[in-house]
């Protein structure tokens, strides 16, 4: 086979893929593609990249504490707007006093931390959570929190299992030990939350543990997947 010696650059092929080039140039590229496997590969790569970008999840759960911050700032804005005196300094006790806040935070969690969830899953979840904020977090809400993480976690778990052979036994041990440590912490936070369901702090703690677990699993899968 006589492969052409020169190739189109990615930018040109990308413009070609988007149909932006004039007919003359496009025709020339098509002729070239017919003979050049390197450029065909590149063009396929561009198309795969665009498809992969489009398939990225549209929803990524915001950190649970962000709501707290938004609410505080909005409260300040509202007070200033109404001309009432400036907000009194937040005292420590308020940290977990607000059942309303706890409820909202829990539901924000339910909305998914699905960093890795496919777009459709993210959408389905986003529409499901349109329930108004109850005053108290029910254990059901807590279970929902678990569930929303469980898909992401099991996906990562599975992916880690599938490449366990690529990791050294000592690495596997370290990862397993750390996962077990986090799981213990999750269990403790869950049981504390079960007996004190309106506790905003516990919701935050539980979500932080889950985040850590997701993060650790991500790092572990990256160890084997890439240089």
């Amino acid at each position, binding site marked *: 086979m006589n492969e052409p010696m020169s190739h189109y650059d990615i930018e040109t092929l990308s413009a070609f893929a988007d149909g932006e080039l004039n007919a003359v140039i496009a025709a020339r590229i098509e002729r070239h593609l017919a003979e050049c496997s390197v450029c065909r*590969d590149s063009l396929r790569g561009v198309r795969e990249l665009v498809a992969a970008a489009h398939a990225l999840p549209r929803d990524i759960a915001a950190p649970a504490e962000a709501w707290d911050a938004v609410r505080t700032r909005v409260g300040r804005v509202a007070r200033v707007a109404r001309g009432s005196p400036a907000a009194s300094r937040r*005292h*420590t*006790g308020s*940290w*977990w*006093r607000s059942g309303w806040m706890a409820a909202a935070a829990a539901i924000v969690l339910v909305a998914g931390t699905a960093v890795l969830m496919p777009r459709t899953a993210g959408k389905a979840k986003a529409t499901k959570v349109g329930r108004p904020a109850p005053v108290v977090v029910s254990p059901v809400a807590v279970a929902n929190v678990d569930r929303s993480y469980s898909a992401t976690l099991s996906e990562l778990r599975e992916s880690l299992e599938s490449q366990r052979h690529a990791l*050294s036994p*000592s*690495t596997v041990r*370290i*990862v397993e*030990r*750390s996962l077990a*440590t*986090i799981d213990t*912490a999750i269990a*403790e*936070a869950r049981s*504390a939350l079960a007996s*004190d369901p309106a*506790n905003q*702090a*516990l919701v*935050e*703690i539980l979500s*932080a*543990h889950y985040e*850590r677990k997701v*993060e*650790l699993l991500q*790092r*572990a899968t990256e*160890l084997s997947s*890439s*240089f």
Partner: protein
Amino acid sequence: MRNRLLTLTLTFAALVPWSTAAAQQKVDIHRSCTPTVSVRLGGAMSSVKIIAWDRDSISLTGVLASGSKMDGGPYNVTGPVTGMKFFVEAIDETALLGNKLELRVPRNARVWIKAGSADIEASGVTGGLDLNIVGGSVRVNAKPRELIVESMDGSVTVSGSPGYARLKTATGDVTLQGNGEDVTITTVSGAIRVSEGTVERGRFESVTGPIVFTGDLPRRGDLRFDTHSGSIEVRMPRQASVEIDAATVTGTIENAWSNARPIAGREGRGMELGTSSGMGGARVLVRSFKGNVRLGTK
């Protein structure tokens, strides 16, 4: 694609050609480069030393064990190198131990290392460092603008003043000595020690590992400590102008920094403490599930 990477001709010379077993190969690569060159080095190495120098050139030297292979090269063929990438493969764990490299780069370079279990030492780099290991250790003595270290078991020690630092381990300990503008340290069970400096914005988190912070707080400092069961000790100057907010779910809080007394937490469990001094310009937030918290002076 890998095969399209321009491969630099490496000079692999047998150091001891007659040696029966452990014949080593010498690595000796030198190239002129741009001051902000980016270097990526990954694979099976037991030791990597990164040294910044005042020259616009890169040198990669060292030895590879018999059977190990190195692949890679610069990104551009003509002119000073803008980026280089190398990958080292070893046939087994023993060979890996014999792979030791030293990398010299311009101060402003960005260096990226990924190794399984390795001791990595970096000094003098003011550009960026992104260092990934599983085991072994990372020691950084530099003032990099950006410092990212990810390790599982390996310990991480940073002295110097990273502008922006993200240090993560699973079981490894993390020590930061010096200043930091924006620092996040995260671990599962490793110990976090921060001392001898000023951190403007700090996030320190562990699950079971203890955290000890001894340092100064700038006027608008913002520090946050989180653990599940790890103890938290925060030592600051008594005259620091700071607002402190500490709370635990079941852990104790002891305050030797000011006269404020912690109060019982929600439903009589855990403790809470709010205290401040001066104008309260800086902010310290301490949260633990069942770890014990201690505030003290330095």
